[in-house]
């Protein structure tokens, strides 16, 4: 679960990381009310998960109530435009109004989980306010890393060492170890997968602030902090995640593509291999779908409907490696699912293994479906059917 800037800053504030004075606002009127009679220049920022807000004109400056209202209206008038990572763009549901800081220098710091060393990794650069991947290409010498021993945790020497190694402006140095320590507290206490301050801003009068906040929480640890369930309501699920959740799947178990061969498999590894098999057979995949354990009739029907109703699939290739489940039970489930669905019908190609698999294949064939023996054969049959089917098909 990725947090919005205002949510991340709330966690920062609790941990004692200096953040600019701010107000979270839903409507232009809220912004106007907050800025009524308040002096100085303020920043109004769209609250979205996508990057590139500045370039998209979704960060604007305002003085006073009237200007606050008008720039808010401008920001909210259109959604975030699409980019490479987010081809659908993102709706803007709220704003953050924040004091404008007199910034002279911008740096970067983040903590994430490193799979290879199996340790938290702290990353610091003297270049902030830009994409860190770009920094790593252009100024690799500016990036310093430290892998934390979890038995020790964070200790201030780590911040000092990193500040020197990354060449941070000396004006950062006094406050930096404490800020990094507080950031480690956020990372550790809330079970985050990523906490990032970009930029970490130095002001003309020598103060250091988290000018932006990026926090990714571990979905598996959300049960420890029930308040996040409420925070989650404010977050956008993308269309695929929403569809998956509505069908009772995990949000990462379904993803759409623009092909015509629908796929369904049990287990993420097999689901990926199934997609790869369709591609090797010359077809274009309509979706990724991991049906998970227990492919019963109800589950299969929902997944069938999900693929049929939300993709351009002309055929659905179901690949179930039964393992310890019974092939005849799964087959009956599939037949039952297709009997009860009210969605449009597309041909099914089914590869099914497990105990009693021959019996399972017989049940499927009797119901007019195409049972196959191997994954490759299934992929080829599915691609063949998708190729010769035009428009709405019937099974």
């Amino acid at each position, binding site marked *: 679960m990725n947090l919005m800037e205002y949510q991340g800053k709330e966690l920062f504030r609790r941990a004692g990381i200096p953040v600019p004075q701010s107000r979270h606002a839903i409507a232009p009127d809220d912004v106007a009310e907050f800025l009524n009679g308040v002096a100085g220049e303020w920043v109004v920022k769209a609250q979205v998960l996508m990057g590139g807000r500045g370039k998209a004109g979704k960060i604007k400056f305002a003085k006073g109530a009237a200007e606050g209202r008008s720039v808010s209206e401008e920001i909210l008038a259109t959604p975030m435009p699409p980019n490479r990572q987010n081809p659908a763009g993102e709706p803007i549901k709220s704003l953050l109004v924040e004091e404008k800081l007199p910034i002279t220098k911008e740096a970067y710091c983040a903590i994430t989980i490193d799979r290879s060393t199996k340790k938290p*990794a702290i990353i610091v650069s003297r270049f902030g306010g830009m994409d860190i991947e770009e920094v790593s290409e252009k100024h690799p010498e500016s990036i310093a890393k430290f892998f934390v021993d979890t*038995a020790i945790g964070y200790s201030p020497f780590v911040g000092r060492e990193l500040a020197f190694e990354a060449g941070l402006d000396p004006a950062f140095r006094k406050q930096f170890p404490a800020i990094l320590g507080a950031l480690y507290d956020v990372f550790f206490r809330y079970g985050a997968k990523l906490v990032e301050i970009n930029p970490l801003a130095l002001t003309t009068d020598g103060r250091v602030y988290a000018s932006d906040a990026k926090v990714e929480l571990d979905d598996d640890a959300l049960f420890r902090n029930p308040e996040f369930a409420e925070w989650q309501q404010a977050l956008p699920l993308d269309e695929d995640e929403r569809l998956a959740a509505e069908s009772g799947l995990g949000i990462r178990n379904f993803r759409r593509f623009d092909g015509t061969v629908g796929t369904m498999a049990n287990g993420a590894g097999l689901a990926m291999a199934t997609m790869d098999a369709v591609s090797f057979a010359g077809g274009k995949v309509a979706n990724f779908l991991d049906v998970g354990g227990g492919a019963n009739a109800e589950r299969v029907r929902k997944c069938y409907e999900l693929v049929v109703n939300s993709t351009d699939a002309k055929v659905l290739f179901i690949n179930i490696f039964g393992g310890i489940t019974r092939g005849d039970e799964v087959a009956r489930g599939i037949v039952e699912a297709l009997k009860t669905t009210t969605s449009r019908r597309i041909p099914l190609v089914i590869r099914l293994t497990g105990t009693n698999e021959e019996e399972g294949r017989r049940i499927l064939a009797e119901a007019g479906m195409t049972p196959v023996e191997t994954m490759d054969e299934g992929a080829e049959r599915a691609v063949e059917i998708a190729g010769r089917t035009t428009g709405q098909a019937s099974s």
Partner: protein
Amino acid sequence: MSIFLDKNSKIIVQGITGAEGSYHTSRMVKYGTNVVGGVTPGKGGQKTAGGLPVFDTVKAAVDATGATHTCIFVPPPFAADALYEAYDAGVTFAVCITEGVPVHDMLKVVGTTAGMRIIGPNCPGLISPGKALVGIMPGHVFKEGDVGLISRSGTLTYEVVDGLTRAGLGQSTCVGIGGDPIIGTTFVDCLREFQNDPQTKAIVICGEIGGTDEEDAAAYVRDHMPGTPVVAFVGGRNAPPGKSLGHAGAIISGNFGTAQSKIAAFREAGVPVADRPSEIPALLAERLASSV
């Protein structure tokens, strides 16, 4: 021989009276695994339907049975605690089947339990065919032989093994290492073990996108196992880019982690990469023939 597990390994099950725990315990026993008991706090003194003793604590179970191995079927919030309890009781080998363990819990566990080998979490366990099965794998798919297999996935492993078995290529040990970001045992850890196992003559590595475990495995094979026949498969060539990968994560792994990077690393190490799981047996047979 085999790695990690044989006929004599004494195994306990943590969470033995739960639905998953009791079902899979009976399957393990049926396969011939030396399960000596299990743990469910509050149910000490009882027996399972199959007659196995239940203990209140891992310590009590280890004291009474001399168990060295544990298989953990407890809900995600309690998995780290179960691993610590096993470690404290002197267990040296733990398989954690549980899916959904908080990643910070595993960070702490792997950083503080040196000396205990952990497989998983979020894994199907392991099997030394003909000897013992610990976890949830379908035993009948496997056949004893000399191919070692390591995989990050469950059902894909069964798919690959099914192909090997049908082609007459039996297995020494098959390890499902799990798909989580932080796991106890990596491909390289398993390769080291296979290297010292006289039964294992060839190795299959089933990887997938994300992380750098496959790249590390390729480098290890290149540097330390040049004569061993190894074949790899990398799932997810057409998978969506991982949305959860933040920029700070991407920078640590650089350009690693994609299917292309992993396939290139294996090929550069002289490890053939199968395009489809069904090609693995033939590739392996070829490598075995040319290595003699």
